[in-house]
């Protein structure tokens, strides 16, 4: 999961434009993620965060712009081909397979050839990270609580051997204790060198956790910078932190 050259540009999104049918939602979103860092993308409800991630992963076809991953132009690749290269998204709303067991969900995460080769290592690692999943590995995912489902969703993402792990709405609908637990997990993943792009509605949390922050509004880039600097910007404090 560790990217060789720490600090090298891993994901480069340039002037991305996308939308649904005839409705354009994104009007030129740019963001860069360096290897080994934790970056966040924040914005109000409906700002276009999820749409940005869909356009990056290929779930919707970009109308314009470019996505470069690990030096390769992947803009037009299918979603599964990007996942196989290690561009991994844990989607909003978890999107588990409710009728399949925990372990089957994890196995599907490791479907691509690259991830399959390290299946046993990853399974052990993920179970060490979330012992609860190991206890319940034969249980159907649909019977889990929201927090457990989010753990499983992240674990399934880790099974894909991500070169970048993108998480849409880590904290949504979860109790504060559960969020704290997940934050600890993400920090340890980052310590190990995993590159993370986090999308969060909870701007406090996002700014506190990450190295670098992008703020988008109404499908446009609003502001960006090292998280501590962004947190100090008056326009951000006013609009997003309620200060």
């Amino acid at each position: 999961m560790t990217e060789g050259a720490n600090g090298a540009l891993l994901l480069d999104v340039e002037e991305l434009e996308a939308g649904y049918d005839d409705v354009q939602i994104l009007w030129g979103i740019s963001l860069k993620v360096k290897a080994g860092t934790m970056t966040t993308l924040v914005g109000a409800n409906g700002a276009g965060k999820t749409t940005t991630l869909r356009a990056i992963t290929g779930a919707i076809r970009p109308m314009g712009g470019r996505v470069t991953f690990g030096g390769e132009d992947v803009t037009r690749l299918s979603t599964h081909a990007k996942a196989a290269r290690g561009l991994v998204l844990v989607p909003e709303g978890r999107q588990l397979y409710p009728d399949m067991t925990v372990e089957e969900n994890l196995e599907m995460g490791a479907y691509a050839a690259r991830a399959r080769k390290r299946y046993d290592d990853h399974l052990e690692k993920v179970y060490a990270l979330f012992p609860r999943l190991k206890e319940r590995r034969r249980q159907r995912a649909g019977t889990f609580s929201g927090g457990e489902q989010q753990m499983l969703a992240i674990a399934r993402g880790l099974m894909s051997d991500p070169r970048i792990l993108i998480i849409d709405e880590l904290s949504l609908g979860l109790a504060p204790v559960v969020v704290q637990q997940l934050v600890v997990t993400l920090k340890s993943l980052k310590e190990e060198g995993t590159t993370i792009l986090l999308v969060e509605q909870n701007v406090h949390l996002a700014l506190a956790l990450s190295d670098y922050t992008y703020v988008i509004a109404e499908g446009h880039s609003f502001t960006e910078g090292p998280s501590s600097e962004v947190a100090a910007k008056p326009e951000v404090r006013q609009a997003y932190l309620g200060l």
Partner: protein
Amino acid sequence: MIGILASVVDGVLVGAVYGLAAMGLTLIWGVMNVINLSHGAIIVLGMFVVYFLTGATGVSAYVGIPVVVVVGFVAGIIIYWMSVNRVIGRPILMSLLATFSLNMIIIGLATAAWTTSPYNVPVSLPGITVQNYTFTGTHIMAAIIAGAIAGILYLFLHYTRPGKAIRAVASNRDAAELNGIPTRQVLAMAFGLGVALACVSGALIATLFPFTVLSGGAYQLKSFVVTVLGGLGNPAGALLGGIALGMVEGLATPFTPVSWTPIIEFGLFVLTLIAFPRGIFAFTKA
């Protein structure tokens, strides 16, 4: 009394084959939300594959079953990429029209090639006699093979990687893509399996009854009834539904003329839809 019981038992044996046919229909629906209106025509293809195979090589129809599976699977994959792939995720009418036109093409070509006169596949197997009623050997064999194939399908879907991928794609296609699963390929494989199941059931039916190019319609109707009994999209329920339909037919046979069979089937179809819209055996969904 023993006569009625024997008729019901025989109905169960034949019903297992109906269940196998319905499994093909319900697998395709469950995975890709396509109702395959060429299902009956594909059953007929299976009948003719086994007919020509036994005629040309002299082997037993049962030895030909694996060949039918392979031919059906390959035909299914070809049909998927030529036609079905274009209508995945589009309004249901599109896939109905696409598979209906396929149905017309297959029946048209088959009629041109083989006319609509009746064919039969000669198979002789000793029956089992209980008191003075004999259970036909071919019916017993067909039920055993249908049960075995249903079991293999279950093991495939639950214990192999491609089988699990089919279940994942059926459950959430977007998530499967994000997991690195090439979902179009998985859909093609699932369609191939559904067609293979329909072909094998056709081959087995050919060992039981005479058939024509136009026989598919009746078996397609039975598959729909079975599917509604078993819960749409539920392969395990399909087998139970098939057995249930066979039982009803077996129960009715001593009392009603054969021409009443479709009426009974349709009646059952409507009653089930009213009383159990999700299928009588829907609870068995894995």
